[in-house]
């Protein structure tokens, strides 16, 4: 019986099945085929973090550390110092909050070429509060030298892996679990670190979203169109460095800016944008959609997004309110 808990599949099932073309595991395997410096580190969870494909095909380049994330980060740093390019995997909470000092001292400070890959961003799990990463962007963004990337969906994951690899230095990749087969009819997307992607242009409000919230923002755009409001939707796949040039343009050409993130509004995308707007004295109305300074609970993703104010309805409401404010 293949038991699935919020997309987190029982690793005892092994990895004998193929991964879809757009899954992280396939992208990592492809990258590793092309670059012999890539090594894969896992702290258990090879199935959930999609590293089983590489483990099956290149066992000599995969290093299992067992359930010990702190040691894994140090090991990754040591390997990077010897010229390898380690991709270190676990759930978002366990490769950020749990090992923050190790990441700061062995990865960020020395700029070791380590790619830290986390799964289960924000509230997207039934496993509960212990597995919900609501502060990982804030933590990683505050580290000097760290680059923080969250692709908007499976169609951007291969580009995210390539971009992380092309960037010499520490990268935190925030990825969603591949809970279902990706939609292969959507075109593959590029990812240029530090360059936001305008998904669709509008005139009234600019909605800046990251990760899975990009899809919600696009839905919100349709919802507010019924009230005659036109939205620009931007995929902010790089949380750090923030695309301030794009932000400048959007803040000057729209009445309002709304941010949307599957993360706390403290220290994440909303906070980063607010800091920039305030420091540049850009006169634009502003609202944030995200987890509002609270811990959550386990539950299905649609349930949690509705309860904690992250779904398209909430983004639409925030956009309407901020556009109507005097």
């Amino acid at each position, binding site marked *: 019986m293949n038991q699935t808990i919020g997309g987190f599949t029982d690793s005892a099932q092994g990895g004998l099945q193929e991964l879809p073309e757009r899954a992280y595991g396939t992208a990592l395997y492809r990258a590793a085929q092309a670059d012999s410096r890539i090594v894969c580190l896992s702290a258990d969870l090879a199935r959930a973090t999609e590293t089983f494909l590489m483990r099956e095909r290149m066992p000599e380049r995969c290093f299992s550390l067992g359930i010990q994330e702190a040691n894994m980060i140090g090991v990754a740093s040591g390997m990077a110092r010897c010229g390898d390019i380690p991709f270190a995997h676990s759930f978002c909470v366990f490769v950020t909050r749990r090992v923050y000092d190790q990441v700061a001292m*062995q990865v960020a400070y020395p700029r070791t070429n380590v790619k830290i890959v986390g799964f289960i961003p924000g509230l997207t799990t039934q496993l509960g509060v212990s597995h919900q990463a609501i502060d990982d962007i804030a933590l990683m963004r505050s580290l000097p030298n760290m680059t923080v990337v969250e692709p908007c969906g499976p169609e951007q994951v291969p580009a995210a892996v390539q971009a992380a690899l092309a960037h010499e230095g520490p990268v935190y990749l925030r990825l969603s679990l591949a809970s279902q087969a990706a939609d292969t009819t959507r075109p593959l997307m590029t990812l240029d670190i530090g360059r936001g992607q305008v998904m669709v242009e509008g005139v009234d409000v600019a909605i800046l979203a990251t990760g899975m919230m990009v899809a919600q923002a696009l839905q919100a755009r349709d919802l507010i169109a019924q009230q005659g409001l036109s939205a620009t939707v931007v995929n902010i796949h790089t949380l750090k460095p923030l695309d301030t040039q794009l932000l400048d343009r959007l803040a000057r050409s729209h009445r309002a800016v709304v941010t949307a993130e599957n993360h706390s509004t403290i220290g994440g995308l909303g906070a980063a944008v607010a800091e920039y707007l305030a420091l540049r004295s850009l006169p634009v109305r502003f609202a944030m959609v995200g987890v509002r300074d609270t811990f959550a609970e386990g539950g299905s993703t649609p349930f949690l997004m509705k309860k904690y104010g992250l779904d398209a309805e909430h983004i639409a409401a925030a956009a309407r309110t901020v556009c109507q404010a005097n």
Partner: protein
Amino acid sequence: MVARQGLGYLQQGLGAADLFAALYMSELRVRPDDPRWPDRDRLLLSTAHNTAVFYAAMAARGLIPAAALETYTQDGSPFEINASERVGPQVEATCGSLAQGLSVGVGMALSLRRQAKSARVYVILGDGELQEGQVWEAGLSAAGHRLDNLCLVIDRNYMQVDGHTDEVMRLEPLADKWVAFGWHVLSIDGNDLTQLTQALERARNIRDRPTCIIANTIPGKGVPFLEGRISHMAAISREEAQRALRILGESP
């Protein structure tokens, strides 16, 4: 060095001087003129505050200029109390946040082995540091991955900030713990150069397991009025420093 600013770890430095001498002057394959030599042996000082002896040993081996020691702990100098990579590639990793050195060493040993290099990795841990959980994660993984190119040296001086290690949090039976974790363990007198060099040589010939050398050291070793004094942050006056140097046969 330590008397100039009244800063630096004196007791630990004197206690570990023989250990650093054995490593830097006998064991380590390094090239002073090429500190980034890819085939060099790596040494990680996880107790990164024990720098008076660390920098002095590197200077003695020619890895850093002796004149640099004059700037020890001065504002702006890369020769800080806690060794950082500001010094250069001679400091293999910035430790000091305790327990991290062994994990980095495990990573280096894994990479060197997979790259078929004969270079070895040496990690010095303080005994107080063994109270950190990450040390034991790293210990498990080194044995689990059969890293015989990794040698851990524990500077067993029974000293930590709050006092005697076994009064703060008991570590004994220490050798048994490492044996149980799958390591080859050697317990020696860490102030005896012959025992040190022999242990390091034995470690080189152990297969399929990492080696842990428990080097029992005496804080302040070599200076009678300092020897055996348990003091994490012992300060020393210039006069005392000169007396100590004369006893050690150095010109102050």
